């Protein structure tokens, strides 16, 4: 029962991006088109599962004082493997992701979950938590990427859905979506929407939880 909660909670109620405000850099920067976003989501989830599992297994032997550095090393070793795999099997995608694969090390979702969950829970629950947070992160990343690619270029995964004017169609692509600011706007509106929705759900309670939290 709790295992299910650990898996499902981070997907919406405790979403790492919109609620815990973790892992924003990559959610903003890699969300231009769907394909790299999908690879990035998979890479982050893989690192998250690996680091949560290893740290959870080592939680009784990790000395408290140098804990952070050891955790960073564990995470970094996972990221190096992912980086090398991507460079070997998907060099074109690795090229578009540039430094952002390496930056999974400092993606605060990974360290955040290791610190606040894996250090205190068994391996099975830690994996459930990692998968849940990975899916929650992927959900936001893919939603933003889908909107940006569709509105910005009229296609999804490079497949044209709205024929653009340049190609003789009718759709005039909104190039703003291809620049960095649009990611801020989209995630801002997404948070607004999600919070408004959550506020409606708890409207019966005396104080809305989401209001003035920060």
């Amino acid at each position: 029962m709790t295992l299910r909660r650990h898996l499902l909670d981070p997907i919406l109620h405790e979403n790492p991006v919109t609620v815990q405000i973790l892992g924003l850099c990559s959610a903003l920067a890699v969300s231009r088109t769907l394909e790299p976003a999908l690879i990035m989501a998979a890479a982050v989830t893989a690192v998250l599962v690996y680091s949560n599992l290893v740290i959870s297994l080592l939680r009784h032997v990790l000395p408290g004082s140098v804990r952070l550095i050891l955790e960073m090393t564990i995470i970094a070793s996972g990221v190096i493997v992912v980086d090398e795999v991507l460079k070997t099997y998907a060099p074109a995608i690795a090229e578009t992701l540039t430094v952002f694969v390496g930056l999974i090390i400092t993606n605060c979702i990974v360290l955040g979950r290791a610190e606040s969950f894996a250090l205190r829970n068994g391996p099975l629950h830690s994996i459930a938590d990692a998968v849940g947070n990975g899916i929650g992160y992927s959900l936001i990343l893919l939603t933003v990427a889908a909107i940006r690619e569709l509105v910005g270029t009229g296609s999804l995964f490079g497949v044209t859905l709205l024929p653009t004017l340049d190609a003789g169609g009718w759709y005039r692509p909104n190039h703003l979506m291809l620049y960095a600011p649009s990611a801020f706007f989209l995630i801002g509106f997404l948070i607004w929407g999600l919070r408004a929705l959550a506020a409606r759900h708890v409207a019966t309670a005396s104080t809305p939880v989401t209001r003035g939290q920060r």
Partner: protein
Amino acid sequence: MHDLITLIGQAIFTENLALVFLLGMCTYLAISKRLTTALGLGAAMLVIQTITVPLNNLVFHTLLAPGALDWLGQGELDLSFLKLVVFIGVIAASVQILDIVLLRFASPLHQALGAFLPLLTVNCALLGASLLMAQRQLDLVQSLAYGFGSGFGWALAICLLAALRERLAASNLPGGLQGLGITFIIAGLLALTVAGLGTS
């Protein structure tokens, strides 16, 4: 000399770490409520960035780059895949050392910056700048300029955001938009301005 000024200018404005490359976002959005705190954080970032980027450059070119170990007779060795773990180690170590040095020799400065230093270890703007430096194959002097420029740019960006958020603190916004939501929109508008500087 002219090239260096261009490099610094690029790092501050057209390639601003926070607003163009979107690095260091967690700290950028979470700790920008007050201008004074933002100033402290920005100053800490500037100092650390100016130290770690050239330091990582030195480490990269003497130990990790392809052919860098020629002096050991291991010229064909390419350790550049280790750069992730080495860079993060260098960053964590220099943050710690700076913390101790400031505590010993400049305690007022330590009081102002102290709380932010440990936070910066996991800030991706630091690692990001070092990785970009390695990717662009800058030399030592260039990396010093790049470190200074990118740190200054990030500090500028967080001060701008904090000043705007202070102004907005008392405004009447829809409930769901308050706090984080509006911060994203402001950051988006700032990013739009910087994007405008880039296209000339």
